[in-house]
């Protein structure tokens, strides 16, 4: 039976966006506004010897490190990225100063006259070099069972290595922020995901209390994690500029500038040593994860943690050793991107399992089934799988929809079918939710209810779904439930819009508050209810040992990819993706399908065509001519179904859903290519160039 909350409704943000009425930061004119252009490092690693600037005309300014009243670092997990470079630069594109003024043409002229002298230093360009030079930002490890002893007695040991590439978000709207210093307060407007992250960053840079800082979101044209930490950097820059010029300062990137300097998905290398027992099951696994964090650490430690805690995928490996390292390179910093470290390790582990199965001559699905997690099993970090694991139902359903087993049995060269199984930990990693303690407010005024949260609409459908949760609980029409403007002066901190936490955590709080409001509905004309997140008592987490429940619960899924390869050109044509997910209960099936289709297509892009190399610290593909993401022409047929599995603490039983669809597509596509070409696939993106090399011995 379909849950009635899941029945699709129209997206509340759609009319303004479709009609063009929605105002993005580039559309908003601020009286007396000035524009800002960033002067960036042209070197991967160097000391700045001198900066020669021209005489500035009236009304033009240069803003640099000397203008920062507080701390010259962007506040995030590791606050190591300078707002403006000091005496050194560590990547090409690192901001050094701003030129600010009323006319863009003049600004560009001034920029072209600024001469920076560098003294180059030895740079680190990739993971291999970083490992040799021991340039490690962060190193973590955890283990479970008796890996050492189990390896000693293993019947067979298989070692393998997997690689994934850099990926750029390509949100439709490039980054843009305006800072307006007015009446002793700082107002920041822009395209952003995490208003309170920016508030904190501004506090550090200005040395101010939060009551003088307002962060206001403008309509945001996509983010995918790319607007999680990066807007903080721009916001701090324009804030300082606005104080110096006493005018609003607007900074909007072109696509090319955005690509050059914004964060990317971490390139990865994952090495495995798998110990097999006499039944050929993996009983011990040693996983060594390496992420290229780029020039600054920023929030990479948490990306690495999610990568490490997702590295066993949907499987139970009783004896486990996991090491994770973030390496420092002189590449553009890596950062948050849909999936947050998990896509790299899930891809690698799925392909390891696939490749072992093929090597053993067994059906990959049958082989995987022998290792599946079940309710009551320990997680990789020795926590507990508390909720029912409906993988058997998920697999049965996808098999009926796709005829996977039948198709893989009828092997034809250049035609392939591949299957992935995957999960995603819901909400923040480790102690994240317990630390942030998200807060929401629900306010009744007559027959209208206003919900106050810091979860933003950025194209994913958050506003529709959060309002729907409240409206549905109170049996109110959608138009009677409204969202407060995302303005840190008006809303409580319910946490950032990240980690697929919006529906489950923030929506969960709204559901609780709505139920309470329902009880008290007739008590008064005006009622305000606030709720603060409380981490369930039964969850335990040791952040030093990485032991316990890394996540409150998990969402699950499977993808079957069917592909064809052009026998002459090796181009991959993804024909169809069949997908089944357990996301608890879908809050809105249409919105969720949007997330699924988008996630799958973004995953296919990462797995096949999105190439972003940085050979000497300089991105080879730095514009949309060279860096290609899938277009509507490249979208395969996508068929998707849900298995309901209500989660006790989620609103209407909902769990996480936003990142999950991204995670599943790459290993399914890679397995299908492997099937079509009879070669093991270990690297993505699987370009025709790479495939031709793999197939060389064939002709």
């Amino acid at each position, binding site marked *: 039976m379909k849950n009635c909350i899941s029945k699709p409704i129209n997206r509340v943000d759609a009319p303004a966006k479709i009609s063009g009425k929605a105002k993005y930061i580039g559309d908003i004119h601020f009286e007396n506004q000035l524009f800002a252009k960033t002067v960036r490092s042209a070197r991967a690693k160097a000391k700045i010897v001198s900066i020669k600037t021209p005489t500035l005309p009236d009304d033009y300014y240069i803003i640099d490190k000397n203008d920062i009243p507080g701390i010259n670092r962007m506040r995030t997990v590791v606050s190591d990225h300078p707002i403006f470079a000091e005496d050194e630069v560590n990547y090409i594109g690192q901001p050094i100063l701003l030129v600010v003024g009323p006319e863009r043409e003049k600004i*560009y002229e001034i920029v072209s006259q600024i001469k920076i002298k560098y003294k180059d230093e030895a740079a680190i360009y990739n993971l291999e070099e970083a490992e040799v030079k021991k340039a490690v930002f962060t190193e973590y490890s955890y283990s479970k069972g008796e890996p050492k002893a189990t390896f000693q007695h293993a019947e067979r040991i298989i070692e393998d290595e997997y690689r994934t590439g850099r990926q750029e978000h390509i949100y439709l709207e490039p980054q843009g922020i305006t800072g307006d210093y007015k009446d002793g307060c700082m107002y920041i407007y822009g395209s952003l995901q995490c208003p309170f992250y920016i508030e904190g960053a501004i506090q550090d840079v200005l040395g101010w209390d939060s009551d003088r800082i307002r962060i206001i979101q403008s309509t945001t044209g996509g983010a995918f994690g790319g607007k999680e930490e990066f807007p903080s950097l721009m916001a701090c820059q324009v804030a300082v500029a606005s104080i110096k010029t006493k005018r609003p300062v607007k900074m909007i990137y072109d696509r090319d500038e955005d690509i050059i300097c914004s964060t990317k998905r971490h390139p990865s290398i994952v090495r495995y040593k798998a110990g097999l027992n006499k039944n050929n099951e993996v009983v011990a696994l040693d996983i060594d994860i390496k992420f290229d964090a780029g020039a600054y650490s920023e929030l990479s430690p948490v990306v690495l943690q999610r990568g490490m805690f997702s590295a066993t995928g949907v499987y139970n490996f009783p004896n486990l050793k996991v090491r994770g390292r973030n390496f420092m390179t002189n590449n553009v910093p890596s950062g948050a991107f849909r999936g947050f470290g998990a896509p790299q390790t899930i891809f690698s582990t799925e392909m390891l399992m696939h490749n072992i199965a093929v090597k053993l001559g067994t059906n990959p699905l049958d082989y995987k089934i022998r290792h599946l997690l079940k309710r009551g099993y320990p997680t990789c970090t020795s926590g507990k799988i508390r909720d029912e694991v409906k993988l058997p139902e998920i697999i049965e359903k996808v098999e009926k929809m796709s005829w996977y087993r039948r198709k893989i049995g009828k092997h034809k060269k250049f035609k392939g079918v591949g299957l992935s199984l995957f999960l995603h930990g819901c909400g923040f990693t480790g102690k994240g939710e317990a630390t942030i303690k998200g807060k929401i407010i629900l306010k009744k005024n007559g027959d209208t209810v206003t919900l106050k949260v810091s979860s933003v609409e950025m194209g994913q459908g958050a506003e529709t779904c959060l309002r729907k949760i409240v409206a549905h609980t109170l049996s109110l029409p959608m138009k009677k439930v409204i969202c407060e403007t995302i303005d840190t002066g008006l809303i409580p901190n319910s946490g950032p819009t990240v980690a697929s936490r919006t529906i489950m955590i923030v929506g969960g709080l709204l559901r609780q508050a709505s139920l309470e409001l329902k009880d008290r509905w007739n008590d008064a004309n005006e009622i305000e209810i606030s709720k603060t997140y409380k981490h369930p008592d039964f969850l335990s987490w040791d952040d030093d040992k990485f032991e316990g429940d890394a996540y409150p619960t998990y969402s699950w899924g499977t993808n079957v990819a069917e592909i064809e390869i052009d026998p002459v050109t090796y181009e991959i044509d993804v024909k169809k993706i069949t997908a089944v997910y357990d996301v608890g209960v879908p809050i809105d099936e249409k919105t969720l399908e949007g997330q699924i289709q988008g996630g799958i297509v973004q995953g296919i892009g990462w797995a096949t065509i999105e*190439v972003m190399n940085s050979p000497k610290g300089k991105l080879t593909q730095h514009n949309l001519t060279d860096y290609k993401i899938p277009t509507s022409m490249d979208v395969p047929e996508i068929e998707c179904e849900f298995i309901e599995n209500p989660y006790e603490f989620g609103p209407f039983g909902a769990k996480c859903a936003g990142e999950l669809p991204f995670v599943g597509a790459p290993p399914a596509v890679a397995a299908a290519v492997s099937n079509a070409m009879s070669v093991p696939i270990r690297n993505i993106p699987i370009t025709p160039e790479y495939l*031709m090399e793999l197939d060389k011995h064939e002709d």
Partner: protein
Amino acid sequence: MVDGFRPADLQEALEFRARHPSIPIAGGTDLMVQKARGFGLKPDFNKPLLFIGHLRKLRQISVRDGNIHIGAGVLLSELIINDKISEALKMAVRQMASPPSRNLATIGGNICNASPAGDTLPYLYAVDAKLILKSVSSERIIHIGKFITDPKQNTLEHDELLTEIIIPNKIFNVSYYKKVGQRKGMSLTKASFQGLADIKNSNVLDIRIAFGSVAPIIVRSREIEASIIGKPVSEINAAVPEILKKYATLIRPIDDARSSAAYRKRVSLRLLEDFLSKLS
């Protein structure tokens, strides 16, 4: 100094060309990208623009003496729907850019841009297309291979405009085209291949072979084509290794952001091999 001029007709356009150094612009889908400087800034044109996209005389497709004359200002999207245009050319044009770009971009622009990745070029080289270049006082007709000299270089004089493209009256009963891009739409060509042949009574009466994106200019060799013409198709198979070897010396691709030289070369030869295998 004028920033731009929008002539009433071709005559006025040519008169402007004769008097001013200028950059002819029709759809601008290449030029505006090449000259873009950044958000909110004027594009970087060092000469006044001469707008020619609207000139009716350049927008006609007609048949004269059996040859097809295509106006230089004919849109890519118009080529696709015109019944005088061969299926072979339509196939190439359909895979160019995106519908909005095809509604702006012109065939003349694709030729004058002179990119080795220009997607109408392999076909135009293969069919020996000729170009009419006009000035106020002269008109000359030139083979496309003589017009494009290097990447981004052509022999258009400062007072001339490309007005028409002539496709000779010639029927090919086998046509093969493949564009290899990074994705299915809105993609620049990594490598492309155009094969045309006229096969009668199992004999190769004519064959044309052109490669795009794998050398500074489109690769076509009359000499190698001549070595195949006249052969019975049954003998082609045996000749394939020799033919591939000859073309391999002409195909000199580069490594760039979109692909590798090795892939481009190998895939070009594989496409040729595939085309030849379809003749018998």
